[in-house]
């Protein structure tokens, strides 16, 4: 493809786009909507996943040892606990250490400073490999002889896992459905253009234009529609994400959730939007032009 042809195809593609203003607007609009919905669910899934990872990092199961056990007996449980499935580490905390930790935590509360270590139990701070298996791990540790109580924040991790799983399923479903819908709509937009230009295409064929030459302007048109849709969708997604982030940070109830900074996400989001937009646009145009190239 020569330089002059590139310019010609590009000019023709852009001119096609503007000569069918309303349909182009509809095609860009649907691409923006599709990418935005797709992007929003993906970002929800990404954030839920990040929360889970943070929780996995910080999450500790506390297993309390029977009060009748001596410190020596309590220490001997370590190997048994570490042998349980999904346990990555178990740190022994004696009742004296537990008292110190508690007093440090509440250093300003004088009433806690004279506590007798005897009111605390020896305990193990246990970290897991996979937070999703916390429930099973808790049950297994509860069954270890000498362990009387196990504390884990299962509800929070279960909630996050549910959010992530739902977001992933919705996201994948939406990606497939919206991709098909977008390709269909862009394909129809370009079909309208090709129908309007069928005489021109017929003449081109009669004078010996190759299918490639006829196809290129429509491919450029699809590319421009997809590209424009992707850029608009990206800017809207960015704005929306920042607004939601500010909303979460300023909320009393939601500020415990740490939202991933958009600065860490913009490159994959931009690349995904551009690739998806261009695939939708070019795919739609190729599917539209195919039947006009049969004669």
């Amino acid at each position: 493809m020569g330089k002059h042809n590139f310019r010609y195809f590009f000019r023709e593609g852009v001119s096609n786009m503007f000569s069918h203003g309303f349909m182009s607007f509809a095609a860009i609009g649907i691409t923006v909507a599709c990418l935005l919905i797709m992007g929003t669910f993906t970002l929800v899934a990404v954030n839920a996943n990040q929360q889970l990872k943070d929780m996995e990092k910080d999450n500790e199961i506390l297993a309390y040892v029977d009060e009748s056990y001596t410190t020596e007996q309590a220490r001997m449980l370590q190997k048994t606990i570490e042998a349980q499935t999904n346990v990555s580490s178990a740190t022994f905390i004696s009742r004296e250490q537990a008292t110190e930790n508690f007093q440090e935590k509440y250093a300003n509360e004088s009433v806690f400073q004279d506590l007798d270590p005897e009111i605390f139990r020896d305990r193990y701070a246990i970290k897991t490999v996979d937070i999703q298996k916390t429930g099973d791990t808790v049950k297994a540790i509860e069954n270890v002889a000498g362990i009387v109580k196990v504390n884990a924040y299962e509800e929070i991790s279960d909630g996050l896992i549910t959010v992530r799983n739902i977001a992933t399923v919705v996201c994948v479903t939406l990606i497939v459905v919206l991709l098909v819908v977008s390709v269909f709509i862009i394909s129809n937009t370009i079909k309208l253009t090709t129908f309007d230009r069928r005489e021109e295409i017929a003449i081109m064929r009669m004078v010996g234009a190759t299918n490639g030459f006829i196809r290129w302007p429509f491919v450029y048109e699809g590319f421009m529609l997809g590209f424009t849709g992707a850029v608009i969708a990206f800017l809207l997604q960015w704005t929306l994400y920042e607004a939601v982030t500010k909303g979460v940070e300023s909320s009393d109830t939601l500020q415990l959730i740490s939202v991933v900074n958009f600065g860490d996400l913009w490159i994959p989001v931009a690349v995904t939007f551009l690739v998806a937009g261009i695939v939708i646009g070019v795919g739609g145009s190729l599917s539209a032009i195919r039947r006009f190239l049969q004669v």
Partner: protein
Amino acid sequence: MIRLKDVEMEYDNGTQAIRGITLAIEDGEFIFLVGPSGAGKSTIIKLLTGEVEPSRGRIMINGFSVSNISDKQLPLMRRTVGIIFQDFRLIEKKTVYDNLAFVMRAVGAGEKELRKRIPYVLKLVGLEKKATHYPTELSGGEQQRVAIARALVNNPTTIIADEPTGNLDPERSLELMRLLVKINSLGTTVVVVTHEKDLVDRFEKRVVTIDGGRIVNDSVGGYVGGHIHGKA
């Protein structure tokens, strides 16, 4: 050079449009293809331009075997043939210049070539001052001359004109036919499909008459043996 050897054409609906036609047209020849409606003239044009494939027989045009031409060869064959339609088929939203430019671009010509070739062809058909006009601003005769210019612009070896005078008054028809004869005198093979007896009779050219899918007469001179029932 055009060769048709025992060509038969039967459409999918069972219509037998061409029944064993054998015809040879030499380079630089001017021929009229005449006949009544339904005689098979349009089918011959479709066969020559590769729009349809013959059911039987062989067709050669300008060195290409059209009967079994590949998708890759078809555009190359079509570049050797310029076609003129009865209804002009100009693109209304393009200027005269752009109507010619887009067919040159379609075969890969550069802008420099366009700037050189288009004014030359427009001058040949007497429309050098109409380059920036839109087809709707031109008369029927002028539009048909633009169509001729478009057929000529890629320098084809053969021009096929399908009822080129069908939408023109007698004076413009004669003018157009003289233009085609002039183009022929420059070395281009010209095949004119027409039903206009008076026009054919005015030129001492080879006339091939088709009726019922067969050649019923092939002679130099006027319109012989045809039964004209109206437009083809």
